[in-house]
């Protein structure tokens, strides 16, 4: 055990730093730093730059175009990416469906889907939740009925993040109701969203933006080749994916970056006022949060190290999800507290690049703070709510 980086690791860190300095587009950096929403085009462009470098698929096996990095390399990369405030990859293709395809898919599916995910040519959405099936995912009702060489899909998926921008969606669907356990009879299918019968309707979230959707399927016909793995085994695959998703949600590197920003922002002295960071009560809260983040950073490193020696992320990933989202939300609260009255303005236009700087109200970190706080209450709800994670830990880690 050793807390320091080796020579090779230090060299890798220098490479990564140089890459971000040279290749991270300035316009995207500006938008990110000013809290302006990215266009799909921005995110795709950045992913393609990463892909040209061979760094798009951090976790994939080398044979499919992954990096083959050690946990420490992944850690270094994640930190540099966060330190530059670079956009995180939209997870649904790269981090969610791809691992299912390369683990459980057939050769033809791998060849057909993985290259386009790697190059960000095709965007994916995740179709798990339904109006009646949230925490109790296994109660899902969307059907896939076999008809010759096709499945006919009928049902509704909801909360589909970025579904309006995606070309494909992966869904858990019911292929059989004649089963002993509800988890049986669920299959994992891939659907081209341009197929007739698919409609996407917006759901506006609490802060006023379109981020999620309801997706309806009415007699949507897909070829049976779009079934991944065995019919009726989708639940098992989906569960593996959820564990990947949970490890991803923790976002420790990003929390570290934001904590740094919070300290920077609150140590500024405006118009003769004492910087907030010098306020004893506030400073202690920042300190306490920094300690928690440090602890989670090491917890994550330990999990990654275990994965590196061949263990799939197990129920322990739930711990990362719960703690990680709690810390993100604690940061949201501190940013909002720091903004004080300036958390209140709701001026959507000022988050556009062409909005005149003189007319801006407060700093973007201030005026977005409440909106972000509201929106990010989702973090303890999605990816399996934190209550569900605790149920999993109680059952599978503590054996209760």
């Amino acid at each position, binding site marked *: 055990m050793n807390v320091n980086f080796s020579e090779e690791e230090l060299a890798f860190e220098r490479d990564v730093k140089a890459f971000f300095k040279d290749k991270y587009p300035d316009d995207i950096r500006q938008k990110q730093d000013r809290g302006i929403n990215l266009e799909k085009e921005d995110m795709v462009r950045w992913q393609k730059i990463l892909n040209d470098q061979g760094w798009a698929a951090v976790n994939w096996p080398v044979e499919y175009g992954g990096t083959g990095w050690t946990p420490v390399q992944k850690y270094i990369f994640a930190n540099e990416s966060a330190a530059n405030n670079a956009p995180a990859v939209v997870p649904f293709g790269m981090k969610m469906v791809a691992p299912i395809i390369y683990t459980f898919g057939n050769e033809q599916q791998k060849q057909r889907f993985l290259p386009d995910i790697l190059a960000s040519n095709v965007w994916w959405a995740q179709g798990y*939740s339904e109006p*009646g099936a*949230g*925490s*109790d995912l296994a*109660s899902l009702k969307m059907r896939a009925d076999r008809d010759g060489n096709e499945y006919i899909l009928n049902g509704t998926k*909801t*909360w589909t993040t970025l579904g309006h921008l995606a070309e494909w969606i992966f869904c858990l669907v019911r292929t059989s109701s004649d089963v002993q356990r509800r988890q049986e009879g669920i299959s994992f299918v891939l659907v081209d969203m341009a197929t007739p019968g698919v409609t996407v309707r917006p*759901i*506006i*979230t*609490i*802060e*006023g933006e379109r981020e*999620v959707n309801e997706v309806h399927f009415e007699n949507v016909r897909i070829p049976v080749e779009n079934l991944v793995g065995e019919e009726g085994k989708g639940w098992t695959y989906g569960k593996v994916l959820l564990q990947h998703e949970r490890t991803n949600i923790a976002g420790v590197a990003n929390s570290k970056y934001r904590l740094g920003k919070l300290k920077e922002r609150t140590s500024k002295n*405006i*118009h*003769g*006022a004492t910087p*907030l960071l010098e*306020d004893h*009560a*506030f400073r202690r809260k920042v300190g306490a949060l920094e300690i928690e983040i440090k602890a989670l950073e090491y917890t994550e490193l330990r999990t990654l190290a275990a994965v590196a020696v061949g263990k799939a992320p197990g129920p322990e990933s739930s711990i990362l999800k719960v703690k990680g989202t709690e810390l993100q939300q604690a940061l949201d*609260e501190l940013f*909002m*507290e720091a903004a*004080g*009255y*300036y*958390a*209140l*303005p*709701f*001026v959507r236009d000022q988050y556009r690049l062409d909005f005149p700087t003189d*007319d801006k*109200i*407060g700093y973007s970190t201030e005026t977005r703070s*409440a*909106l972000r*706080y*509201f*929106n990010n*209450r*989702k973090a*303890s*709800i*999605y990816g399996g*709510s*934190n*209550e569900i994670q*605790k*149920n999993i830990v109680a059952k599978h880690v503590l054996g209760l």
Partner: protein
Amino acid sequence: MDFSLTEEQTMLQDSVSKFIDNDYDFEKRQSIAESTKGYSEEFWQTFAELGWTSVPFAEDDGGFGGGPLEIMLMMEQFGRGLVVEPFLANIILVGGVLRRLANAEQKEQWLNGIIDGSKQGALAFTEAQGRYTLSDIITTAKADGDNFVLNGSKAVVLNGGRADFLIIPARSSGKQRDEDGITLFIVDAKSAGISRSAYQTVDAHQAAEITLNDVRVPAANILGELGKAYPTIDAVIDEATLAASAEAVGIMQTLLLKTLEYSKSRVQFGVPISSFQALQHRMVDMLMGCEQSKSLLLWATMANADGSTEAKQAISAMKYLIGTTGRKVGQEAVQIHGGMGVSWEMDVAHYFKRLTAIELLFGNADFHLDKYAANI
């Protein structure tokens, strides 16, 4: 000690409560909030006709002669209905200053319009650097013959964009955070040198950034004495803190009710989610938070109504507790609603946002805990 209401108080409470039940459902509230004005002029007139806008004013001024208790009863109901009409800004903040300081002429010119609902006002008590320190004022007022010249800027002024007139605290002498040397000026919002940029706030209320560039104000527009405004501002913000906290308590109780209802109807794993003990305990915590908050609301309101020496401590204690438990109650309500809790179409999301905004108004939990702890 007596927690019962007088007949008059009960009638007032009932009349607001009926209005909320009959005329102000969530759909209506949303359509008002999303209109250009951001409030209903028609309802504002109704408020005036029913006498609500006159409640805290003396009978001699054409008011109802009510005090903090009456305001509390109304604000709780406004919280329950998530009312966006600018009662706090006009009646409590602006009205609170005018009631105390305006002379007969000034009352005639400004206060009457507030009471009869024909005028909108704003008290510009916040500056960007000041956070919650009311004496932190760098807007200057320089005497020039019979006039004063104001320069500076005011931040997040509630109701500032649509106000017909503004009450502006400015420094006529002293240093940045001195309590002495602050003067209140009342000016037409369209006076030369005033520029305003109005916007909606995250809780569907409205505010504005206000810049004062060589604004000339006649000395006759000073409210009260030159340089002696601080105690009035402080007292008015105390009342506003009480009023906003009463609204917060109304919101918290509503969030609890809505969460209970939702949890009983939402079925997962074949049972209502209200049957999970993990959630039951949290709803019990919400209830305890509501009750504790209501208790301090009553204590602080009664103490202030009596002019008790404890009043300031009580107000800080209350705002601290409502700040911390309100945050908890709001977060739990959203969490227990799952994805629905973060949807624009759901009322709880909007109750949560208003509750959060109140947490940030007039001093957050840290600020009031500091104030309280300094005097234990």
